[in-house]
Every structure is written in C-alpha cells, then in structure tokens.
C-alpha cells in the first residue's frame, strides 16, 4: 500500500440544521487517480471546500502528508502542495492568461512579493509560462484578456493555473463541466497527462471520464460515504446502482 498523502478523519460539517458532511473519512494515496462521485447535492464541493480550508469543518481533522492542516489558512495549504480547481471558473477577468500563469508561477517560486523589478524580467518565469501555455493549448490566446476567451479555453486556463503550482495533491472539481463536446478532448487529455507522482482527486458527473481515469472511487450520498473501491467494484455495487437508478427514475417521472 503506497504512502497516504491526504487523509480526513471523521469530517463533519453542519449548516444550522443541515448536516452537509457526515463523518467522512477518506484516504488518498500517492499517485492516486481517485474519483469522488455522487448525485447532485451529495456534498462533494462542500467536502473539497473543507479540504482546502475555505470552509472550516464542524468536527474532524484533515491531514496532509501526516501534518494536521485542519486550521491552516487556505493560501498556506496551497504552499504545501494542495491545489484545487473550481467548478465555476475562478479566473482573473482583466488579466491575460500569460499574466495569470506568470503570477501563479511567481507564487510558487516565492517571487510574488517582488515589488521593484517589472514582471517579465525573470526569464525563468517567462520560459515556464511559455511551456504551460503550449501544454494547455493557450499559446495563441496568451495575450488576450481572460474575459474575452471562449469558455473552453477558460476552463483550460483554470486547470493550467492549478498545474502551474506543481501540486502534490490536485483536486479537480468537475473540470469538464459545461465544456462543449468539441473541446472536451483537450480537457480529458490534460487530465490524463498529469504526472504520475501527483495525487489527483476528481469530482465528475461524466461517467466515461470517470471510468477511464479512476483507479479508485468514493461514492458520496447526502454527505455520507456510501462505499469505496475500484471502478469495477463500484459499477457492480447494487447500492450504488440504486442511488443512480433512483435518481434517473425521478428525472423521468
């Protein structure tokens, strides 16, 4: 069994009378390709928010490589290698992709507080930005303001910003959401091309993507872990099928 990089212990989150996260304990190993699935409203994003520190848990602990980070502020967790993408793009609308990536790279290299030299004077950062732009097929759009980019390109930028931080644990929150079919290929390719030593947790509804990507899956329903296992085990699990089939029934009804 390989090394555990990210672990939660009995995570609980209550909002008033609602329990959004109910005693969730999960492990993510090094190099994992771990998918987190569940019907809408299961609390997947809430869980991610607790992992990244945006939401404080009501109970329970989060550990990163054995270190308790439960009360660590979000930006410091990123410094430790825990990076996420957002379900709804969170980008810098008035900056260009090049500028956004330059900022992300500078942050990783601890150069973001330089105030005297102009941005761009460090050729190392410039070179890395070029490489990232090429990798995410954003080179022709490098100098266009982000708010003018088509949605699919913005989604790629969202992931590029995360990769720019050279994360050890990457949380992808529905990376393909809303992306037109023609551009989905790009997203899927970049997710597949992530380095082997990066541990990836993927939230997705697209079952093709999930099953082609994941080596391990956790099913979340109503904030509780229903079951966990390999994709084959999950696909064969009658409980899981009931949850999803039940949902489909409601949709048709």
């Amino acid at each position: 069994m390989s090394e555990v990089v990210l672990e939660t212990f009995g995570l609980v989150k209550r909002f008033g009378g609602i329990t959004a996260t109910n005693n969730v304990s999960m492990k993510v190993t090094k190099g994992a390709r771990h998918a987190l699935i569940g019907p809408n409203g299961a609390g997947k994003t809430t869980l991610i928010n607790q992992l990244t520190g945006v939401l404080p848990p009501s109970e329970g602990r989060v550990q990163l490589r054995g270190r308790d980070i439960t009360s660590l502020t979000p930006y410091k967790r990123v410094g430790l290698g825990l990076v996420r993408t957002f379900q709804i793009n969170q980008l810098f609308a008035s900056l260009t992709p090049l500028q956004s990536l330059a900022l992300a790279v500078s942050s990783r290299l601890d150069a973001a507080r330089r105030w005297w030299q102009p941005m761009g004077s460090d050729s190392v950062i410039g070179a890395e930005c070029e490489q990232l732009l090429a990798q995410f097929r954003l080179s022709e759009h490098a100098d266009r303001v982000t708010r003018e980019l088509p949605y699919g390109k913005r989604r790629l930028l969202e992931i590029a910003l995360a990769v720019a931080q050279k994360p050890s644990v990457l949380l992808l929150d529905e990376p393909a959401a809303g992306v037109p079919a023609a551009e989905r290929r790009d997203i899927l390719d970049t997710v597949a091309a992530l380095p082997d030593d990066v541990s990836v947790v993927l939230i997705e509804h697209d079952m093709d993507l999930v099953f082609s990507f994941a080596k391990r899956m956790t099913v979340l329903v109503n904030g509780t872990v229903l079951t966990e296992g390999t994709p084959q085990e999950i696909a064969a699990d009658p409980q899981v099928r009931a949850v999803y089939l039940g949902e489909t029934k409601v949709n048709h009804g």
Partner: protein
Amino acid sequence: MSGKASALLLAPARWRRWEYALWAAIWAAPIVFTSHAALINEIAIFGLFALSLDLILGYTGIVSLGHAAFFGVGGYAAALFAKHVMPDPLVGLAVGTVLAAVLGALTSPMIVRGTDLTRLMVTMGVALVLLELANKFDSITGGADGLPGVMMGPLLGQFTFDLGARVASFYSLAVLFVAFLILRRVVNSPLGLSLKALRDNRLRVMAIGLSVNFRLALIYTLAAALAGAAGALSAQTTGSATLDLLEFHRSADVMLALVLGGTGWLWGGPIGAIAFSVLRDLLSSFTPQYWTFWIGLFLVVLMLVGRERLFRPWTWFKRSGS
C-alpha cells in the same frame, strides 16, 4: 518563441511617449506660470492625495470616505514636528509620512472583513474619530482655529519658502514625481500584478497561494503613507494645520477628483486633480454661492451615464449598453 512571454509581460511597464511629454509640461508649469505657483502647489498636493486614494479605490476596490484621516495625520504631524522639534521640511515630510503609514497599518485589519457598507463606515469612522480628537485636544492642535506659527526652515538647507510659493510648488511637484515613479515600479512588478488580481478575484488569489490579507494591509498602508505625505506637504507649504485637513469634504473632494481622472491607472490622480480644480474654478466663477449644486448635478449625470464614458467622448451621444 523564447523570450516572447517575457517581452509580453514587460510591455505594460514601458513609458509611452505622451507620458514623457505630459511630465515635461507639468514640470514646466511653475516656470511658465510663476504667478500661479500657489495654485500649482495646491494641485500637486491634491494630485498626490488622489493618487494615494487610487491605490485603495482603483486597485483594491474599497470605497473609503475617510481618506482625509491620513491626510490630516500627516499634516498635523509635520506641523507639530516643525513647531516643536525641527523646522527641516524633508525630515518633517518623513515624519508625517511614517505616522500616517502607522495609522494605515493599524487600521488595515478593519477593511479586510465585512461588507462594502461596513468598510465605508469604518473608514469614515476613523476620520470622524480623529476629527473629534483633534477638536478635543485643541491645546495641542489649535482646535478650530488651527495651529498657528508653523515656520518652515529652508529646503535642503538652501531654498527658503517664499511667499510667491515657487519653492513650494517645485517641492510638491518633486514629491509627487517621486511617488509616481515608485508606484509605477510597484504597479508593474509581480506584487503590483497580484494587486490587480486581487481586485478581480480574491478567491483565486488565495487559490494560487498568495495571502490576501497581507496584500490588502500593504496597499492600505502604502496609500496611507502617500496621503500622509500629501498632508505634510499641505501643512508645510501653507504654514498651517487646521481641522479642515480632516473634514469630510476632503475625503469627498479627493474621491470626485479621482473619478474625474479615472481609477485604476496612475495618471488618474494627477489628471483628476487638475480637472477638479478647473471644474471648481469654472463653476465658482459662474455661481459663487451655489456651485455645489452644479457639482451635484454633474455627479448625478456622470454616474447615470457611466463613469467610463467620460474618457470616451465618442460614446457621449450613444445609448448605453452598446
């Protein structure tokens, strides 16, 4: 392809030709218009004050109606320093700047949390509190009558402040110029870019591993320092410090000037200061008593049609939403 990214990133930092020209014109002004040196001095100080507000308003998006707090602290500090310790202008300027920066650093935790309304009230509140304190401790500050007898020593040991305000205008312009140069470096640096990013999306700034609170505190302190410098200049070049330095209309005037000049670019402060002074002089000459009415009307119309349109005369007669 190599080096192309760096070149693109460096592009915004380059000085445009018109900027050199504009600065040349500004420096020429006190030489050409010697009789208006006092007015030039006032506009330079006001421009610095507006520039400092731009850091808060334009670059961080915080609506502050209490920026006069730092202006007043700088002014009183410089005046009291000249009167009780040492009349050297540059040292006094440093004292005023530093004290205002300290106040900015101390109050910066207040602007990090809360709603727009909260921030508006807290910034206004600090200015109001200082105004009340200056009023109460009138034995030190001179209260409503102002601090009398602030005599400044010669600048750099050589240039005495003359009644014609020539030395004063060069002094203030120099400080404005230095501030402009420093800010220009900061704005185009990685730190500056992160501040622009902060205005766009705070959550994302956190998500790339940068501290939002640090940046907000830093820029607020820097803005306070520059406002304090402006206040110190005001006290030194006019030889007085009154409660007027802290009054609400100062905070409101500087905000209007900045809006006229345009927020979010460094020239907004200086250009806005010039535009505001011109506007005020024009209106006062038409209706000396009720010019505030026309300023009010101007504000209402400007906000209704959209602030940005002021800089695009070709949109003035089109319907909005295009």
